[in-house]
């Protein structure tokens, strides 16, 4: 079979099956012949290596008559309402995130002050230095724990927003008959290494907090000679 025979069989089957853009398809095969001929192959060899033209033509699926472009206006209005609720929801989540971040900073700051033995604006009640330092370490550890939680929490919010964005995109794409992207998972996507680090950071912080809080509490009780050491040191009284 030579080039012309190959292409004419291909063309006739394509036309019989009402494949659109048959000319464009033929063009690809013509170029294939041109490249191979330039490499010194004979038309017969090339045709044989291409495969049976009838089978090839049958591989082309009739394209669905392209869906008339819809504006998907109803979908967009619906999505507009969904956006309002989702937006408020994300705002609420973000507000909680800010609170967690603030708590992390506050715990860390109190911890550092107590370890250094300083009391800016006399905010930290009087406490013997070593008792205070231990509670300070506990507080700093709590700060780290909250920071780890905060990072994880923000990663969650970010993923939720991305997932929602993809859902919006796909909903519009379906309405307009455009290709759909794979949907995104709605749980936290962290690199395994980041995940491991975050987890060990939280675990170490939790253990440090528990140990130093108990130690600090016990030391305070011993130092003050009373279970309610805060009464002895006159806390919470102006």
């Amino acid at each position, binding site marked *: 079979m030579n080039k012309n025979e190959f292409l004419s069989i291909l063309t006739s089957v394509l036309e019989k099956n009402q494949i659109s853009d048959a000319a464009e398809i033929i063009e690809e095969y013509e170029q294939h012949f041109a490249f191979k001929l330039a490499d010194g192959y004979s038309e017969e060899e090339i045709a044989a290596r291409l495969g049976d*033209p009838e089978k090839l033509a049958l591989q082309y699926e009739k394209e669905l008559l392209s869906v008339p472009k819809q504006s998907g206006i109803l979908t967009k209005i619906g999505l507009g309402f969904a956006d309002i609720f989702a937006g408020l929801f994300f705002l609420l989540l973000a507000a909680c995130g800010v609170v967690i971040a603030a708590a992390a900073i506050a715990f860390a700051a109190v911890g550092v002050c107590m370890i250094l033995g300083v009391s800016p604006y006399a905010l930290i009640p009087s406490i013997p230095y070593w008792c205070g330092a231990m509670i300070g370490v506990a507080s700093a550890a709590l700060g780290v724990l909250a920071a780890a939680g905060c990072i994880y929490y923000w990663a969650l919010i970010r993923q939720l927003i991305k997932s929602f964005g993809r859902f919006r995109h796909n909903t519009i794409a379906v309405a307009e008959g455009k290709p759909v992207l794979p949907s995104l998972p709605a749980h936290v996507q962290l690199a395994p290494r980041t995940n491991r680090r975050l987890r060990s950071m939280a675990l170490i912080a939790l253990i440090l907090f528990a140990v130093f809080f108990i130690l600090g509490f016990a030391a305070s009780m011993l130092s003050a000679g009373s279970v309610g050491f805060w009464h002895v040191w006159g806390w919470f009284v102006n």
Partner: protein
Amino acid sequence: MNAQYKKGVLELCVLSLLKKKDCYGYEISEYLSRHIDIADGTVYPILRKLKSDGLLTTYLQEESGGPPRKYYSLTLPGREIYEQDRADYLKFAHAIEKLLEDDDHE
């Protein structure tokens, strides 16, 4: 090998090549037939299907001394679908490999 099954894997191979760089049809056909035992013509229907599914786009580029070549390029959905299908396929292939190797030792 089953033709239908082979076609799915070939789609993956085409996407993998196009992830590295844009190619024209003949380049893709040559690349595949160098690695896999298939008829040279098989790749063209696949390219067209991938294009109509929105995974690929085409553009024409002038070449010195010849007609302009039709280049295929991966779209954003194409890229994402490739990554997902690749992971799925590797997982599947790995499981099958393990299964068949176990069979070998019995």
